[in-house]
C-alpha cells in the first residue's frame, strides 16, 4: 500500500480552540507601499490552507510574514499563541525556486543534513535520518547526487525532504510546483497531501493554480490586489481522500473552480 493511501485514511486533527498560525489586523508597508492591509486569518493545527490570488497580490508576502522572515508594520502574527519575531525551526519553508534554495556544493544527503545540523542532531544518527527522509520523498537512490544532476521535480522533492528534516509543525509552501511540468506536479500534489497527513503538519500553500488550491486544500483564501486583502474564503468540503481523476470531476469541485475563477477574474483590473 502506498504512503498516499495510508495517509489519506487518517482523519484531520484540528483544535478550533486555538489557531496555530494567527494573523490579527496585519498590515505590511514596504518602503511606503502597502503590500498587505488589515489581514486577519486563523489557521488551525493540521489544516491545509491554500492562498490564491492574481500576481502581485501579496500571497508570497503573507507566507513570509507567517515564516517570520518579515515583521508586520502593524497588527501581529502569532504561532501557537506566541508572536513571530523571527523564523522558527519548527516552521519549514518550501521555496518555489528550488534551484536557488539548495546548496549546489552539497549532495542530496548533504542538503538534508544541513537541517539536521541546524537542529543539533548528533552526526552519528544523521545518516539514518537522512536515508529515511530521502526515502519518504521518493529519492532513496539519489543520496550521493548533486542538485545539478537532478531534475526539477527531484530537486523540489529534495527541498521538501530538507524541510521535513526540521520536523515542522507547519509547512509553508510558496508556489512549490509552479515551475514543474503537469505530470510531475500532479504526482507531487498527492505526495504533499500524504506527507502532510502523515506528519499532521499544518500547511499553508500559496499557488496561482486555482484547481491545485481546491484539490489540495481544506480551505482556500483568495486575495485581492493593491493593497493585498482577503477577498474570498471557501471551505472545501470535498471528500478528504482526493484523487486526481474523481476529485477533479466532482460537480462540487467544478462549482468551486467556477466560483474561484470568477473571483480572480473580477479582481484583475
Amino acid at each position, binding site marked *: 500500500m502506498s504512503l498516499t493511501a495510508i495517509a489519506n485514511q487518517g482523519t484531520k486533527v484540528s483544535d478550533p480552540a486555538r489557531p496555530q498560525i494567527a494573523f490579527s489586523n496585519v498590515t505590511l508597508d514596504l518602503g511606503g507601499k502597502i503590500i498587505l492591509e488589515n489581514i486577519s486569518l486563523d489557521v488551525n493545527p493540521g489544516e491545509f490552507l491554500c492562498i490564491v490570488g492574481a500576481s502581485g497580490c501579496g500571497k508570497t508576502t503573507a507566507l513570509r510574514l507567517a515564516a517570520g*522572515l518579515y515583521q508586520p508594520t502593524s497588527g501581529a502574527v502569532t504561532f501557537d499563541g506566541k508572536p513571530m519575531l523571527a523564523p522558527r*525551526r519548527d516552521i519549514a*519553508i518550501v*521555496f518555489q*525556486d528550488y534551484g*536557488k*534554495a539548495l*546548496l549546489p*556544493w552539497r549532495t542530496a544527503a548533504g542538503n538534508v543534513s*544541513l537541517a539536521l545540523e541546524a537542529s543539533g542532531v548528533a552526526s552519528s544518527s544523521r545518516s539514518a535520518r537522512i536515508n529515511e527522509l530521502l526515502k519518504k520523498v521518493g529519492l532513496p537512490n539519489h543520496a550521493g547526487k548533486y542538485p545539478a544532476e537532478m531534475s526539477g521535480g527531484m530537486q523540489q522533492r529534495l527541498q521538501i525532504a530538507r524541510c521535513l528534516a526540521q520536523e515542522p509543525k507547519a509547512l509553508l509552501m510558496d508556489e512549490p510546483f509552479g515551475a514543474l511540468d503537469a505530470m510531475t506536479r500532479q504526482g507531487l500534489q498527492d505526495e504533499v497531501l500524504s506527507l502532510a497527513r502523515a506528519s499532521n503538519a499544518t500547511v499553508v500553500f500559496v499557488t496561482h493554480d486555482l484547481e491545485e488550491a481546491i484539490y489540495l486544500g481544506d480551505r482556500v483564501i483568495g486575495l485581492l490586489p493593491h493593497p493585498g486583502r482577503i477577498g474570498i474564503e471557501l471551505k472545501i468540503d470535498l471528500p478528504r481522500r482526493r484523487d486526481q481523476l474523481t476529485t477533479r470531476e466532482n460537480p462540487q469541485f467544478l462549482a468551486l473552480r467556477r466560483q474561484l475563477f470568477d473571483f480572480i477574474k473580477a479582481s484583475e483590473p
Partner: protein
Amino acid sequence: MIPERAKAFVLPVATLVVLELWARATHLQSDSLAPPSAIAVALAEAFQDGSILVATRDTLVSAFAGLLVGGAVGLTLGMALGIFRIFDRLMEVTIEAIRPIPSIALLPIALIALGFGYRMEIVIVAFASVWPLLILSRAAVGAIEPRLLEVSRALRLSPLDRVRKIVIPAALPRIFLAFRLAAGIALIVAVTVEIAINPIGLGAAIMTAQQALRPDLMLAYLVWIGIVGYGLNAGLVVAQRHLFGRAALAGDVA
C-alpha cells in the same frame, strides 16, 4: 599535416628560427639582444652553477610569503566587509584612499624601516596582494544567492555556521579566482622590487646580467621568469579544478 594542438607553437618556433638565422647572418653584436641559441646556453649554464635556482627560490619565497600574508589580510577584511554592511560603510573611504597607492611607492619607506632582504620585499608584495582578495571576496560575499541566506535564517543557523556552511563554500570559487589573480600580481611585484633595489632573486639577477653586458644571460632570466609565471598560473588552475570541482559549479566561475 600539423596536429591541431601543435598549431599554437608554429608562430613562436618560426620566430625563434628567424631570429637565430638573422643573428648569425648579421654576426649580431649587441648589449640588449642575443641569438636564441646563446640564450639557451646561458640558461643551461645558470642551471648548472645553481645561480638561477637560488634566485628563483628567493623570488618565490618572497612572492609566496607576501601572497599568504596579504591574501589572509585581504580575505579576512573582504569577508568581514561583505558580511557586515556597517563595517563596509565605515571602511569605504579609508580603503578607497589607500588602494590606489602603487605598492612600489612604498619601497622607500619599506627600505628605511626594514632594510634590504626578504622582509622588505614580503611587505610590499603583501600590500599588493591584499587588494584583489579584499575586493573580490567582498564582492563574492555580496553575490551569494539571497535565497540561501534566507534558508540559513529559516533553519536558524548560528552566525558561525552561517559563515562556515553557507558563506564560505558559496564564495570559495570566486575567492580562489582572486587568489590566482593575486599570485600573478605577487610575482610581478616581487620581481619589480628586486629590479628596483633589492639585491636578491630573479629581478636582481637580470640587473646583474645587464650590468655585466651579458644580454644572453639577461634574456635567459627573462624567459625563465615567463616560464615560472606560466607554471604558477597553470598549477593554480589545476589545483582549482581538483580542489573545487564541485564548488566551482556554484559560483558561476567557469
